[in-house]
């Protein structure tokens, strides 16, 4: 949909790097050739919880081509968090690069450094490690018991002073509420109390985590990283490797997907250490197996929801108790936990009595981290099923119920203020919300009123439809900052240098569209450079759905400064008052006198003619609010009543992401997220052996869908305008993943009347639930 007001905004511009990617010329980290590069191979713990008594690396070191073995013995011992967040990080400082204690199967023990990958691999097998085993803790429900094994010692702390207690394995705690639950309980006609479990998941970016480091000609450390957070990488590497920020340059080339998995500073300090120690380039690229087990995952969360309802559906109180399994370390433990409430509960803003209790606990299992949806996915799995249950109990129509109860334009929620990213939040009003339209589109497209509750049957197969809704945020208010710098060239082109980190989302393109719009030029006039800590201004990075909204505002502001400079130069050049000049098609014109100058003329004037100066500006933006995008999704499923196999027949998404800067790219975000959500709901799961090691750590056994597995997927970007956004934009990156799992669960119930509180919805699980139900009848 093309907006007439704009020349570039709202246009399906082609992604500026797409052709170079399709022909293979744009490079990813591992595509850069470094001469005399050292290759690293990490060695991991086979035990869930143990002390390292001895590391015998003599046999390995004796092998030809082995250069070094890193372990706790010879690396800096600095407590930190690997979470790539702003400073000071809201995650607890509970990790060393290498530790004497290992806390999950796959925790780091040592790293082999060798002349070739083959040698590194072979030598890694020769490292002998003696352990003293400790009793592991696997059940998050037992983590806070007095007699539970304690994973971390008293030296661990949180730099922001959040509530944290390693003595109770408590990585984070959030406890807030308002109103009076007792009152809410006595007002209720019915109390619904259910527990939902969101499971582990892997990001599965097709590019594995990769890093290459080297010294440049001047002895500065260059880090080529597949990261979502180049500036945080620079800061954290500097701290844990004890090397000055001034001597570190982080470059982010093309990134093969992130989804949160690369918002973690895992490998960069290790490669940096190798280069610092040996003055040679170093390379670390994880295998797929390592990505599954040793990087980061989606935090499993157990969510208990208790709600009181009146017969008319009004919710008299809501209590959410979330227990997040953080795994062995507390990466994002506080903020994902907070988002499980803060991105979910404001949706129902008419509840007077509300309580959110969240706890993140340590266990000797793989470590959670940032993952698209960031706690909201887990929370919405619970809430959307809960509301479906509520509507069925009271015989209400779910779409109508949602429309009546969700937050609306001009409204606020007390949750916004009470709960932020690990601290108190920010009061804000919703100024754009087209969720009603989203719900209407989705129900119409799926044929809700023809199909819902009808259990249409053909032979053994029964059909059902399901609906789910969600909101997310657009950046972290009062925290996130993005910046841009623009300079003009004498042919009328512009260098746009941005800290924002394009990890495949297309942010380079949409940020260029924003600048092109302000400057009245074609997209082709923008030359984009992003995420090079030496060359571009700061940006927090690609997370929290912040890029379009936060960085986009910075780009707009910067482009406006350039526009003003262009007009000033043109005014001087043409000798007309600046106020009379208008910009159109790369030209400044005074409509009255007809005097005009095109951009090349203006820039040449500024560069060579009089009062010479470079047309150049820098701007940064930090934001005071985080306008939520909204989403509805409906699905139709077909359940095989003999086998429990669930087939997804169709998925419809409708999103209010504000003004889509580039509708096609926005659709792409929603589609990709939706399919990731489908996959999480249907097939993805971590399987563990009794000793806590992941069994299915490869694509052979951890299944994600192919093109042949997916049904018809329809995506609608609903017209909307966010007053505070750049040209009305909000965000679209994360939200799409929140609804498939609950929508499918609701659809399965609609088809066969069974309620699944935990995914994935494998045939086996559905079958067993159907039979348990038959038996109990």
């Amino acid at each position, binding site marked *: 949909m093309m907006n007439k007001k704009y020349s570039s905004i709202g246009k399906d511009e082609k992604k500026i790097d797409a052709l170079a990617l399709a022909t293979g010329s744009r490079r990813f980290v591992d595509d850069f050739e470094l001469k005399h590069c050292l290759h690293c191979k990490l060695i991991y713990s086979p035990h869930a919880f143990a002390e390292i008594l001895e590391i015998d690396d003599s046999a390995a070191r004796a092998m030809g081509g082995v250069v070094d073995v890193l372990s706790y013995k010879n690396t800096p011992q600095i407590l930190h968090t690997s979470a790539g967040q702003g400073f000071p990080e809201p995650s607890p400082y509970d990790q060393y690069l290498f530790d004497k204690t290992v806390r999950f199967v796959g925790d780091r023990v040592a790293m082999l450094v060798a002349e070739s990958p083959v040698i590194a691999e072979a030598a890694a097998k020769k490292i002998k490690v003696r352990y003293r085993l400790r009793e592991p803790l696997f059940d998050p429900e037992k983590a806070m018991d007095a007699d539970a094994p304690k994973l971390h010692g008293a030296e661990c702390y949180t730099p922001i002073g959040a509530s944290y207690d390693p003595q109770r394995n408590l990585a984070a705690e959030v406890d807030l509420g308002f109103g009076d639950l007792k009152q809410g309980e006595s007002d209720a006609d019915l109390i619904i109390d259910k527990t939902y479990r969101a499971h582990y998941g892997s990001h599965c970016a097709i590019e594995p985590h990769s890093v290459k480091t080297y010294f440049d000609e001047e002895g500065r450390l260059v880090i080529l990283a597949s990261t979502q957070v180049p500036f945080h990488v620079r800061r954290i590497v500097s701290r844990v490797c004890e090397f000055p920020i001034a001597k570190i340059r982080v470059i982010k080339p093309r990134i093969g997907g992130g989804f949160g998995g690369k918002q973690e500073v895992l490998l960069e300090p290790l490669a940096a250490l190798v280069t610092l120690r040996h003055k040679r380039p170093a390379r670390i690229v994880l295998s797929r197996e390592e990505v599954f087990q040793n990087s980061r995952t989606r935090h499993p969360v157990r969510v208990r929801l208790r709600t009181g309802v009146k017969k008319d559906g009004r919710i008299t109180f809501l209590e959410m108790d979330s227990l997040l399994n953080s795994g062995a370390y507390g990466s994002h433990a506080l903020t994902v936990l907070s988002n499980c409430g803060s991105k979910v509960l404001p949706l129902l803003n008419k509840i007077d009595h509300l309580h959110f209790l969240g706890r993140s606990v340590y266990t000797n299992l793989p470590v959670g981290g940032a993952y698209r949806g960031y706690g909201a996915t887990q929370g919405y799995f619970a809430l959307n099923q809960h509301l479906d249950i509520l509507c069925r109990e009271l015989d209400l129509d779910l779409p109508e119920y949602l429309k009546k109860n969700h937050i609306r334009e001009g409204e606020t929620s007390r949750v916004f203020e009470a709960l932020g990213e690990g601290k108190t939040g920010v009061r804000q009003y919703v100024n754009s919300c087209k969720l009603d339209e989203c719900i209407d589109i989705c129900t119409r497209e799926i044929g809700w009123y023809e199909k819902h509750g009808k259990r249409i049957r053909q032979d053994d197969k029964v059909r059902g439809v399901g609906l789910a809704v969600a909101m997310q945020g657009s950046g972290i208010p009062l925290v996130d900052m993005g910046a841009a710098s623009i300079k003009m060239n004498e042919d009328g082109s512009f260098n746009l240098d941005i800290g924002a980190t394009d990890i495949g989302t297309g942010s380079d393109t949409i940020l260029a569209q924003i600048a092109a719009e302000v400057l009245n030029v074609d997209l082709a006039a923008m030359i984009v450079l992003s995420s090079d800590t030496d060359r571009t201004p700061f940006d927090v990075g690609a997370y929290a759905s912040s890029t379009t909204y936060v960085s986009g505002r910075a780009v707009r502001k910067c482009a406006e400064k350039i526009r003003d400079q262009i007009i000033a130069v043109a005014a001087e050049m043409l000798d007309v008052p600046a106020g009379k000049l208008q910009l159109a098609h790369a030209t400044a014109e005074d409509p009255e006198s007809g005097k005009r100058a095109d951009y090349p003329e203006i820039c040449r004037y500024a560069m060579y003619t009089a009062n010479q100066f470079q047309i150049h500006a820098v701007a940064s933006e930090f934001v005071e609010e985080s306008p939520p995008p909204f989403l509805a999704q409906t699905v139709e499923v077909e359940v095989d009543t003999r086998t429990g196999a669930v087939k997804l027949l169709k998925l419809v998404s409708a999103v209010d992401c504000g003004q889509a800067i580039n509708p096609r790219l926005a659709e792409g975000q929603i589609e990709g997220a939706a399919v990731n959500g489908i996959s999480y709901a249907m097939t993805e799961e971590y399987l563990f052996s009794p000793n806590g090691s992941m069994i299915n750590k490869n694509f052979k056994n951890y299944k994600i869908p192919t093109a*042949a*597995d997916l049904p018809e997927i329809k995506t609608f970007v609903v017209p909307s305008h966010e007053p505070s956004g750049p040209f009305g934009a909000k965000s679209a990156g994360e939200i799409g993943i929140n609804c498939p799992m609950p929508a499918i669960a609701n659809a399965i119930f609609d088809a066969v009347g069974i309620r699944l509180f935990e995914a994935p919805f494998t045939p086996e699980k559905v079958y067993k639930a159907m039979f348990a139900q038959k038996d109990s009848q």
Partner: protein
Amino acid sequence: MTKIHWHYPNSLDEAVLLLRDPRIRAVGGGTDLIKRPLSTVGAFLSLWGLNLNAIDLRGDTWSFGSMCTYADVLKVLEPEHSGHVLYRSLLHAANTPCRNRITLGGSAAFAPRWSDLAGPLLALEADVHLGGDKEETVPYARYLQHSELRKKALITGISFLNFAHRAAHYREVRTHNDMPQFTITVLLKMQNSDIREARIILVGSEARFLRLEKLESHLRGKRRAQLDADALAALVEVTFKSRPGFDPDYLAHKAKTESARCVISALESR
């Protein structure tokens, strides 16, 4: 450098001679071998120079060289023989690029739990041709049972009779690109609309290669109207060992249900 030697024999005799050394491994598509640790392998022997990729329908016999890939087989059978059991089975096996590389010989020799080839070969009562001191032709069923044969012999080709049949193949998979937990292959010889003979193979259960004989004999002489899915499922006796992520009882239930369905879909196929 990995210390591994490669042999490129030009003749079958040379290949067979070399393969007497148990540390020398024949490489077909290499799709499985390349993922294995090399510790037990002394040398590889490439089968690519031996011209083992002929495909022939002569008289009433189909014969395929062992170096034919899954894709080669599909291509030959398409479109006239797209009802053929081998076509039905291999059409969705592995994934598109893998089908271009997996060889009949490598697959028949490796015969994994997830094989989409073993079922149709057993249903066709195919023979495998073995190169060796004395060239030998053995039924594939026998080949599978004799680990001695499997260890030593080089498969040079596969053949089976060409006859009219109806077929269906079921793959128990989570996504299209998945190695099946089990497969069911149904081959029916018909006499008008009656089943004259049924051959039904379940690959991947505890027995690995299982012929569903009870079901086969029940079907003899029957026609569609006489078949009831529940009754057919009840005739399937199968057990599974537990494997990560799968309950053996559920797999057995699924195998029974899908066997019955597979019979009906074979009957209704054209």
